[in-house]
């Protein structure tokens, strides 16, 4: 592969929420900024920018990942899901999003997109987690508003509803 020079923008092509997209990025551009500024997908939030807070969590090639710990050029050719891909259609929330609304699992909403992307992945792999397992899983996210109780309640409720619709 040719060397991508530092001060030039290079075309990055990837699949986002089932759609092929492309945009331009310098090598130093983080995937968070690429999603937000180049592609206009501002649902992915930027918090601590060093992988601790979890606000920027997306699904990258089928696994949850911090968008702020990935360079846009690293993600060239990758398959990404962001919070914009969760709702089944405009004006309708997914089961998980609806549970968050019902349980007041967000106040300011800054951490929410990341938590939703993590949980969306987790429930496909672990449909029936215990509360302890769920809390351990959520340790990769920081929420400064809720105290986590409504987030855990919403997640448990969503997991149950997802199981019920499957059976």
């Amino acid at each position, binding site marked *: *592969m040719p060397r*991508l020079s530092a001060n030039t923008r290079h075309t990055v092509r990837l699949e986002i929420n089932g759609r092929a997209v492309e945009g331009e990025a310098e*090598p130093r551009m983080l995937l968070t900024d690429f999603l937000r500024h180049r592609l206009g997908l501002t649902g992915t939030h930027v918090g601590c920018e060093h*992988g601790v807070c979890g606000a920027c969590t997306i699904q990258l090639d089928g*696994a949850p990942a911090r968008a702020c*710990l990935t360079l846009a*050029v690293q993600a060239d050719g990758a398959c990404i899901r962001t919070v914009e891909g969760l709702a089944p259609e405009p004006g309708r929330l997914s089961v998980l999003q609806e549970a968050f609304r019902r349980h007041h699992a967000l106040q300011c909403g800054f951490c929410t997109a990341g938590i939703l992307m993590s949980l969306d992945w987790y429930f496909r792999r672990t449909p029936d987690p215990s509360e302890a397992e769920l809390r351990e899983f959520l340790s990769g996210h920081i929420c400064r508003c809720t105290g986590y109780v409504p987030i855990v309640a919403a997640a448990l409720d969503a997991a149950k509803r997802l199981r019920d619709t499957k059976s």
Partner: protein
Amino acid sequence: MKPAPFDYVRAESLAEAHDVLAAEGGDAAVIAGGQSLVPLLSMRMARPGVVVDIMHVDELGGISIEDNCIRVGATVRQAELLTWPGLAQHQPLLAQALPWVGHWQTRARGTVCGSVALADPSAELPLCLLALGGEVALSSKRARRSVQAVDFFQGIMSTARNDDELIESVSFPCRGEGEGFAFREFARRHGDFAIVACAAVASAKSVRLAVGGVADRPVVRDFDDAVDDALAAFASELDARDDLHATADYRRMLVRELGRATIEEARKKCRA
């Protein structure tokens, strides 16, 4: 909190990665999962001229058993090792320690070799590599060599790797007959870097304890029966420091308490 400019090369072969490292040396940084390097870039603690992405080099992948060791290639992600079916059978210490490495979301991207390459003094994987007496396989355009874990870790984020070398793989010895293992850690929040982490390997004759998070690198010591006094001496000899998270005295206290509990658990499993 944005990285300074750098060139980017996505290497498609080991030779290509070696060439860049041979030409640029210390001005080049290897990226695999990026979970350690990208924050360093963003905080500008690292300012390389070129970043070499090795994630697409096929020959650096794979987990295998070789010479009674689990050999983990440079592009193997932590989540991949954690879900490798043979892990708990071949090396229980890794199965116990890996869930403590970062969070789900960072283990999905971060590599095993990347954590060893970074050599954070409180990281779990360097600690396990040292406790088990593993080794690091390095290669460059010039040569290949293996370095024992005890010689590899040289200080805070400082290792025996030369500027033109990259880690091809790390090898963790498989469990020996009748050995017992335990891992314990104290951190403010699950997944954060450990304030103190302990890994113990017990055999019928002795027990070996490795401690991370205290000195500038993980430290290992063998103990016989009289553990309490020896552990207290070990804790006081460690070059502990005060920082934002804990005082040196508190860390020494944790080494004594957590160390004893870890040793006891490993011994119990050894007898079982």
